[in-house]
Each structure stands twice: as C-alpha cells, then as structure tokens.
C-alpha cells in the first residue's frame, strides 16, 4: 500500500480509544502536573535520540494517517479477498487439522471478562477465570488420564521442547534424549533449538520402512544409562497408531529414562490415553479442541505429568489449584507451586514462560465440556470411518498407502508408482478447487513423491468422493 508521504496530518480530534484526548481533559491534567505541553514530559530523552514529530510522521506506518474503523476495515477486507478458502477444507494435517468449531466456543472466549483479563494475579477478583482454567486442566487430565496439567504452553512443539529440558533436570547428569524419526519434523526442529545451548544430545530412532512404526529393536540398541527420556508421538507423523507404545515405555523405564508421549487429543476418543501407557509426561496440540487453524497460531500446547513430586518440582508453566478462602467458607482457586516460575525464581526458574495460551485453554475447556464423556469416542469413530473410507478408495485409482500399520485419520500416499511429481498433482487439484495433502518427500527423501493426506469430520464422504474423482482423473491425465 502506498502511504501518503506527501504531507502529514496534525490530528486533534478526540480519539475513541483515548478518553483523555479532549481539550478539556488535556488541560485539566496539564494544569495539575504543572506543565504547559505534553512534550515537556519527554525532556529527559537525550536530544540525540529524540524524534521530531515531523520525522516520525513521515515514516511508513499504516497509511500515514489515522483511519476510522470503517476505512481500516475496508483496507483489510480488500487484502483478505486475496486469500483462498477451500470447501471442503484442505486434506491436510501434519499436527494441525481443519476441525469444526462450535460457535459457543467463540461466544464464550469473546466475553470481555475473559478476553480482556490479565493473568489472574489478584485471585479474589479472578475466580471465574481461574475456575475455567482449572477445569481445562481437569478435563484435559481426564482425556489424557494424567494427574497434573498446566495452564498451557505455546504449542505442541514448545511443549515437547520444555518436556525434554525438564527430563534433563529430572534425570540430572544424563545427556541424551531419543526422538523418533516418525515424529513431526517441525517439532524436532523446535526441540533442537531449545536443547542446543545446553550441549545435550538428541538421537533419532529410525522407523520401520514397511510399517511406519518406531523401530523397537533399534531403540533397544540405542537406549542406555545416559538416556534421560524417550519421546514418541501417536498417532505418529505418518498417522500411524504406534501399537508398541506401551512396550516402548517399558523399555524407557527399564533404563530409568522418562517416557514422554505426544498426542493428537481427538484420537484419544478411541486410542489409549498416555496415562494408561504409563507416560511420565504427556504433551500434545490442543488446536483440534475448538480452535481455528489460524495459519499456525494461536494454538494450545498441552503439558501433563503424573503425580510425582520429583516431576512437579521441575514442571514448567502456570498451574491453578483448588483451595478454599482463608475463613474456609468458600471454595476458591489459587496459583500453585509458583516457586518454580520465573517471576519468583528468575534465572533458576524451570522455564521463562509467562504469557501462555490461557484463552485457548478456556476455549478447549468449553469444547471438552460440549463433547463430554461420549463425544470424543463418537467424533474419533466418525473421523476413523471417513479416513479409512478414503484409504480404501485410493486403491481404486491405482494409488497406495505407503505404510501397512493401522492408522487413525491420516496417511501418506505414494505417487511414485504413478510416475508423477506431487507438485503436478497438487497444481491440478488446485485447478479443481481442492487443496490436497502435505508433500513430505522433502522431510523424508527415501519416500520420494509422497504426500500426507488427512481427514476429519469436515471431510464428508461426498467430499472424499470428489477428491478421489479428481485425483483419478489427474492420474489418468498425467500419470504414466
């Protein structure tokens, strides 16, 4: 956008977001302070760095002048028209999924008492917010069957990174973490970033090329007394249910390493929860619980542990606990175990996290309350049927799933046999108004022309039929 550099505007109209900007208020305050103009209040700024009004107003900031709400909205609308919204939504997952968001979720988090509140440092006036976060922690604990859940981390990847750093503190002296090759490759990059300054080792457990699962034999040969933790993701990046998850946990525990699991919470409607697999730490992405994909954020980093004081003391993030008032008359909520946190412990804190994703946690609480005890199973079953329907249908058009093991809602499709680059397929799908899966040949060169396709409750059988029809047509046209 071209800013109006030609002139700059002197703005004297009272502004709706600045109540003191009327002539009367301004004069009253200046008189009380005893200065003639506001600029006197900036006299302590060294002349060398003090910006002139003219100089500042000529900078390219916005369109160079204040806008009314109506004008601003018009400008943004024009830009947003350049985004393309797909219906059905992209057949794309990889840690973030197009899910239905019930309008109630947005309605509740739009309430100003939640939306415009700060972290509840003054407990007595913030009880409703604290209860909502406590209920998020509590419902998440039931879904995961873990005991303690914090008020949120930034996203799944930063939860894993913090879990890994925590494992090094809990298993002090050990210097190695085992991460599977079939975890989300972007998550792995985040873990690498967090771990690097501490000179610790990350080693990759290979996956079984036929099944797509963690190579358990390889894990056995890699794990040793220097291993602080073993992480697995289920469903893994290839969408596969890790049927040996429990055994992997046992292998970790035999060497006194922590067992960390990463989950896609919607899958827990039909998959065993981390608690039942005896995970020490469970992490995951709460985006699927009533949040939009939002081009990558805000999402919701899930972080949970089992009840063990050795873990509690090293846990990152804020936690709300149930208590009473001092007179014992009312139930009440307070922040607990704050001595772990940065505002108390400074450089000795378990993490630097302060602002988290609290509002997203409230959204997830509303979502979990709506689905309730049976809703997750019903939703997971629906998604399972849809994805398996799609998996069955792709064989009709000469495509195949890359891996043989059982999956939940996404799977890589190989286009190698069709002899066509995935980018060509992707282009043709776009022409037909569809956005296909995620190309993963870059992350896994050994898989060649392969794309990860995901299905949710927003991909009806009708939508899947259309995808298959178009894919089939494209393969006939451009395949060999």
């Amino acid at each position, binding site marked *: 956008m071209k800013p109006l550099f030609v002139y700059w*505007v002197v703005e004297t109209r009272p502004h709706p977001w600045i109540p*003191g900007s009327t002539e009367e208020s301004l004069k009253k*305050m200046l008189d009380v302070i*005893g200065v003639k103009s*506001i600029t006197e209040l*900036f006299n302590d*700024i060294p002349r060398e760095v003090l*910006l002139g009004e003219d100089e500042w107003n000529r*900078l390219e*900031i916005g*369109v160079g002048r204040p806008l009314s*709400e109506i004008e601003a*909205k018009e400008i*943004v609308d024009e830009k*947003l028209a350049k*985004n393309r*919204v797909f219906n059905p939504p992209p057949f794309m997952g990889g840690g973030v999924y*197009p899910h239905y968001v019930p309008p109630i979720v947005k309605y509740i988090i739009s309430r100003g*008492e*939640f*939306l*415009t*509140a*700060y972290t509840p440092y003054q407990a007595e*006036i913030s009880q*409703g917010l604290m209860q909502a976060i406590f209920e998020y922690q509590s419902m998440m604990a039931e879904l995961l069957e873990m005991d303690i859940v914090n008020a949120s981390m*930034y996203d799944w990847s930063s939860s894993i990174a913090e879990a890994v750093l925590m494992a090094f503190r809990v298993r002090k002296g050990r210097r190695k973490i085992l991460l599977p090759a079939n975890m989300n490759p*972007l998550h792995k990059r*985040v873990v690498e*970033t*967090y771990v690097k*300054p501490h*000179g610790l080792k990350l080693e990759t457990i290979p996956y079984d090329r036929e099944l797509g699962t963690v190579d358990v034999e390889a894990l056995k040969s890699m794990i040793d007394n220097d291993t602080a933790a073993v992480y697995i993701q289920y469903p893994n990046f290839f969408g596969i*249910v890790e*049927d*040996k998850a429990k055994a992997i946990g046992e292998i970790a525990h035999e060497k006194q390493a922590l067992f960390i699991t990463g989950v896609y919470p919607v899958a827990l409607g039909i998959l065993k929860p981390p608690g039942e697999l005896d995970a020490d730490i469970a992490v995951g992405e709460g985006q699927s619980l009533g949040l*939009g*994909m*939002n*081009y990558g954020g805000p999402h919701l980093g899930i972080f949970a542990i089992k009840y063990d004081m050795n873990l509690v003391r090293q846990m990152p993030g804020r936690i709300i606990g*149930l208590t009473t*008032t*001092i007179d014992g008359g*009312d139930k009440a909520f307070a922040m*607990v175990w*704050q001595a772990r946190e940065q505002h108390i412990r400074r*450089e000795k*804190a378990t*993490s630097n996290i302060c*602002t988290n*994703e609290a509002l997203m946690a409230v959204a997830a609480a*509303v979502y979990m309350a709506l*689905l309730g005890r049976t*809703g*997750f199973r019903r939703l997971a079953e629906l998604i399972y*049927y849809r994805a*398996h*329907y799609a998996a069955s249908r792709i064989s009709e058009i000469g495509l195949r799933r890359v891996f043989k093991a059982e999956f939940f809602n996404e799977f890589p499709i190989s286009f190698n046999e069709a002899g066509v680059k995935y980018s060509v397929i*992707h282009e043709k799908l776009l022409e037909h108004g569809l956005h296909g899966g995620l190309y993963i040949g870059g992350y896994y060169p050994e898989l060649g022309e392969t794309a990860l396709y995901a299905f949710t*409750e927003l991909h009806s059988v009708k939508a899947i039929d259309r995808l298959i029809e178009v894919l089939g047509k494209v393969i006939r046209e451009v395949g060999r």
Partner: protein
Amino acid sequence: MNRFRQARNWEPLIFELGSKGRIGFLVPEPEDAAKKRVGSIDIPPEMKRTRDPELPELSEVEVVRHFTNLSQAAYGVDNGPVPLGSCTMKYNPRIAWEIAGDPRIVNLHPLQDERTVQGLLEILYELQKWLANITGMDTCILHPAAGAHGELAGVLTIRRYHEVKNQLDKKTDIIIPDSAHGTNPASAAMAGFRVIEIPSAEDGNIDMEALKSVVGESTAGLMITNPSTLGLFEEHILEIAELLHKHDAIIYYDGANLNGIMGYARPGDMGFDIAHLNIHKTFGAPHGGGGPGAGPICIKDRVVDSEKNIMLSDLAPGYRVVYDESTGLYRVKGPGEYSTGLLKAFFGNITPLIWGYVYILSMGPQGLRRVTEHAVLITNYFMKLMENVKGYNIPYGRGRFRKHEVVLSAQPMTDEVGVTAEDVAKGLLDAGFYAPTIYFPLIVKEALMTEFTETETPENVEKYAERLKEISKIAYSNPSEPKTWPRNTSVGRVDVLKANHPKHVTPTWRVHVRRMRGEIQ
C-alpha cells in the same frame, strides 16, 4: 467509594453439573457408504481405549450458562481499570477481534500453498515493515508467541552471534539490571548464559559505575527495558550502548515498556541491536487471561561475517515473509543456514498479530505518538495526585517525570501500622478496581507498580487515587480492618498456603478424586 459488588462465585465445578447421558454437541453419524466399506473399527487391542474419559455430561445450555456465570466472576479491562505496571492493559478495540475472526484467516492451514494465502502474507509483510519503522530497526520477525518467547529468540540470537564469531567460550555472561522483569534472567539462563545482576542508582538510572565494573571480556550481552520498570527513561543509554559495543556485546531491548516512548524515541536509534515487542501490550491485542500473546523481535542489522556475508538478522530464529519481485508473490522464508532454528512449529500467533496490524493501521504515526503522549500524561497526572499522601512514597527518580508507569511504595504504611501492599491491593479490589502489580520491581519494598495507559479516563484515575487515600486513612485509624479485605469480590481472601500444602494441593479434579480414594497422599 464505588459501591462495587462482584457476582458471588457460587457456580459449581463442571464435574458437579449435568446428568448421565447428556451431550452438548451432536456428532454426525458416519455415512453408510463409509461404514459398509470399512466395516468395524480395527484399532490394535494394545492401543484401543477401553473406557471413555471421565468428562462431565452436559447439555448445550448448561455449558453456556456455566461459562457465562464463570465469566461474571472474572475481571478485565472491559470491567474497569487494570493498571498492572509493565503489563500495559489498554482497551482492546473490538474491530480487530472481528477481523481476526474472519474465516479467511481462521480457516487457513499453516502449510497451505503460499499462493492461496497472499492476502494474509501481505498483511504480515506490512506489519513487519511498520514495526521496523516504529522501532528504528531493519528487520522484524513475527514468529515468537509471547514476550518471553521473543526474549528467548533474542538471547539465542546473541548466542549464535558469538558462536559464529568463534568467541562463545569466553562470552558467557548476560548483564541484567535488578529492576528487570523475571523473564529476562530466565530467558538468558534458557539460552545457557550466566546472569550478572547490576543495581539501579537513586535517580532510577542504571548505576554506571556498577555496570562498568562488570562489563568485560566475558560480556555476551545486556538486556534492558527503557523506560525502566520504574517508569523512568534511562538517561545514559547512549553511553551504555557505546560501552557494550566496545566489548563486542549485544544490547537487547525488552519492549514491554515501549508504550512510554513510541513516536518519541526508537530502540534502533538508541543503539539497541535486538528488541522484542509485545503486541498484546503496546499494540492493543488483549491478554486473554494470560495469553495468547505475540512477541516479534526486531533487529538492527549489521555484518557479522563479511567473508560468508552473514548478517545479524540471518542468525535469528523463525519464519519471515518476503516479497518476491520476479513473481509478485509474498513468500514465507523458513530459517536459513545460519539461523538459530524454530521456536514453535509454525509462523506465529496470527490472531494477536492481526490485532496489532489493525491497531497500527487505524492509528497511523500520529495516533501512535498520541497514544504515548496520553499514556505518559495520565501517569504523571496520577503521580501528582499521589504526591505527599500519607502512608505512601514514590521512591527513585525524585523530581523526574515518569513515562508509562509509576511505582508507589506502601512501605511507610507497612512500617507504621503493618498494612502492606497486598492489603492495599485488596482494598482496591473492593472498590471495583484491579490492583497494580505488587511487590515488583523487587528493588522497591511494598511496591505498587501502576500503569493506567492512555485508554483510562482521567475520572477513573482520580477515583483510584481517592480510594488509595481512603485506604491509607483506614489503615491509620483501624489497621486490622484491611486484613479483612476483600469483601466485595466473588470470594474473600484466598488460602494460598493451603492451596500449596502437600496434603491439600489439588491441581486437577482427578487429583481430588484420587486423594479421596486414598491413591494420593
């Protein structure tokens, strides 16, 4: 005093509501075609969930009522003043919430084809540029999800800088003033640095002698906020920058307090190399009860390695939007060869970023400068109203104007009659005001760190000051009364000791149930 009374917190826990078999959301039945073709659900028995999660069972209306009632026992800027110092709790213009909730943003997958998200990328590209101009920096990266996340991005960049220059083994220290936010030392430690703390001088500036005595060979960087948490502009900033640069250290700007100088001075002009901003403070995005935030970092670029042509901004983590002249397309560039990497999986926290975009677009340069002018004006107005009030004093920087915030101390009252900053805070709650940040900065005893921001009305500031005077009066006439506050909030004073007692601590309903069953001691 305001006749304030918050809704009682009578709402039961959600686990105590509802009834067996109720559901708040109807999941569609799988289509017959799918069921027929797929048959039964075939999860390996080792991984099949055998019991449904112990979640409550509520109808839709019960869920709505529950959370609506909870909201009434919460308090935000929409309810009244929230003058938490260094938190910049300004009004959050709703036009931005409406735009951020547009399905053309909400429904975008982060790995979607770039050509299908050009509108959003154009917005983010412009935001990068505007923030660079506001801060006087060259490059801004929107990746970090919060202020502390931005700090981590910044200190990791400092680390990488010394690594690339092959001097990391001796560059071990980050210097931080004792008035800094707790996140600063915590972030420095997360990046593997040793933290060296330096004191503040009586005038509120950094103690230059103390600084000179610690800067040296081992100094990797300095993290400061300007204005400081005392609300005072750091007058020696240029001298500090020169001193640090002489020792090849990086100066980091904590942008939490940018609302005090925006349009008057820029970190980039003061000699800072890296800065983070808090979109959820300075640029009108809400705090959401603790998040989401957005903490972009901005970098004053310079050559780090002329042979390999590495710039300082090449070392920063995250994604950035670039404009490709040849195709006319905006593209997302991931971390390059020399970058620190990624701090979260995807681009950034889009909702607050959009909020910041709409805010800056609406304000323009004139509006932003005016924001700062009025933020500073109202702070000094409040300080004037609180001068010479019995029971309080205003430590540091005597005779100096404040910027975005002012720190009062209730120490006289505490020393004389035992009424503490916490008691004062509870007395404010009873009048329907949120309290200032208390017991921070750590260098002020019984601190009441107060930041109204430009969006507060002068009338409310007057009432706030009146209430503080009234509290003082009560404290001196009946010092035991403040210990019974608050009375008008949804509950009385909360038992924090019990909340943390090993026999009582209850972080989830599950722990409560397990403790009842005797499974947890």
